[in-house]
């Protein structure tokens, strides 16, 4: 007969609650201590790993990618702080420097491209600018995308826009690119010519005239496309960010 009325029962109940609370605290403290201990062990292991494999991370892009993916899958962001645990691996410096260089390249080419630059063009310019040391040459698209995405938090409009078939463009000036605009970019990328027209879009995408015209005019307004009136049949819209000659990085900034 546990349930009893009266003062005694209340007091007993209170005592039980407190005991549970204490036990709960104890377990929790244990958990906390456990975490502290685990962290220490992890730190030691991480430092060991760093001494053995730091070079691999700098030199081998596949390894870098694997590392990043594993971190993402367990919910950890090794790049979130330059002073964190992961800084001993030296990947922070690698990615932050890459981010700085991406910003610089984008700024230098914005007058030409209107703020939109193809990822492969970005990569070839970066490789050229980074110098001849071997560890500088091995940057992959994945590295660039990760570094560029880090810049999003500044709100200055840095975004990575996929244009289909594994190709990307990096936008460095804030502007709204809707799905339609992205589709236009995709068409230009895969058409092997640097221009499209309203008629082209109607044929390839099955759009109505109004829709195609609106999308193209918006891009002209944003400074991403140029109008060519020399064609007798219709206006042609050129995209300087996708000119092949720009991708050849021997042309100067």
């Amino acid at each position, binding site marked *: 007969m546990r349930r009893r009325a009266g003062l005694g029962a209340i007091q007993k109940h209170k005592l039980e609650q407190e005991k549970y609370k204490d036990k709960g605290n104890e377990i929790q403290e244990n958990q906390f201590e456990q975490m502290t201990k685990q962290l220490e062990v992890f730190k030691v292991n991480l430092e060991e790993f760093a001494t053995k494999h730091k070079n691999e991370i700098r030199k081998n892009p596949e390894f870098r990618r694997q590392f990043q993916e594993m971190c993402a899958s367990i919910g950890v962001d090794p790049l979130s702080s330059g002073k964190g645990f992961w800084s001993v691996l030296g990947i922070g410096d690698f990615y932050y420097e890459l981010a700085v260089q991406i*910003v610089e390249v984008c700024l230098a080419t914005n007058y030409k491209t209107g703020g939109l630059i193809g990822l492969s063009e970005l990569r070839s310019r970066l490789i050229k600018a980074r110098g001849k040391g071997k560890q500088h040459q091995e940057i992959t698209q994945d590295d660039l995308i990760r570094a560029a995405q880090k810049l999003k938090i500044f709100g200055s409009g840095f975004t990575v826009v996929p244009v289909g078939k594994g190709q990307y463009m990096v936008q460095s000036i804030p502007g709204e690119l809707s799905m339609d605009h992205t589709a236009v970019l995709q068409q230009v990328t895969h058409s092997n010519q640097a221009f499209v027209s309203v008629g082209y879009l109607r044929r390839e995408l099955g759009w109505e005239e109004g829709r195609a015209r609106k999308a193209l005019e918006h891009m002209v307004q944003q400074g991403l496309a140029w109008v060519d009136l020399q064609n007798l049949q219709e206006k042609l819209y050129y995209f300087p960010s996708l000119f092949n000659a720009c991708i050849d990085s021997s042309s100067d900034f």
Partner: protein
Amino acid sequence: MNRWKYASPLLLDNEATAICKKNVRIYDGDQKTSFEGGELIITTHRLLWGRPGAISKGQTCLALNLSLVVYIEEESPSAFSFSRSRKIILYLSEPTDFDPNGPQQTSIYNFIKLSFREGFNSDVTAILNDCIQRKQWETQVNAAVAAPKVTQSHIKLRTGIVGIERSLQEKQKAADESISVAFQDLSKLMTMAKEMVQLSNTISTKIKEKQGDITEDETVRFKSYLLSLGIDDPVTRNSYKSENQFYRSLAKQICDILQSHIEEMGGMMALTDVFCRVNRARGLELLSPEDILSACQIMESMNLPLKLYQFNSGVMVLQLATLDDESVAEATAILLDDKGSLSSEELAQTLGISITLAKERLLTAEKYGKSCRDDSIEGLRFYPNWFLTH
């Protein structure tokens, strides 16, 4: 028959005699040869056949490498054979080297027979098989060739395209091996990290629901752990940053570096610009975008000369604390009156600031009613607001 060679019966290194038989005849395929009545010695490496007494005297005799023997079998005597002799058939592989030093250069058969006139017991077949299986000549060959190969390998690496390819392959192999070790270490590390993430999740839920008395001190420490690991958790997002010494000193540092620049540039600088400049100045131990953002966020509370400001469009800038929206709008309006109309490119050029910031200034002026926009395919252009001023 063309696999036999003239050789000396002296035993090679590691070669040992297995069995001797007298009065043996060699058949080339099914045909008798003139090599009859001789002594046959089976060693671990070769078959030696010599005229009676020749072997013991060390004179030249015939030798057949056991490595050429593919298969042996005993010939079952046919019903018509009267002789006591038993024969062993040895099937041979193609000769490896065309050494002209043999009794016969060509042969249409690829097997030979050994005929034992005095009969034999099955031991011979077994022993011969054993010697062939053991392949003792192979270890010897390796040992003999290994020594000269050491010096040879240096030369090999340098010769021509094959040499280059080979050294590339070796480098690749070494890299592959070290990579697989690295990946193993990586997976171990990740399993450990995963456990910690799970544990931290439990603790952080406790903190959120305020169960139990987790002390202030422990909470602070816990938050610092989360930050260092890079775990994104709501617990760490807001208040912690301001309590941390690292971010406070970072904020001061940024102000010191950039204040004069910002003043020159009209009072504001986009955060991407801040990020680049600060990291370039540091050179080593670069800062992450999150670090810079957190440092800028606490500047206002620390009463530093710079502060973080976010426009409606989401663009974030670091601007002088003395600057505010209205003064910006005023300044822009004055410029507009001056020039008649401005687009963001023109304003950017006039003031020497970036296009993004120029656009923001124009938008701010519009917000305060100082300008009107003209939105056309030619771009966005602003005019002084005559609706209000006239």
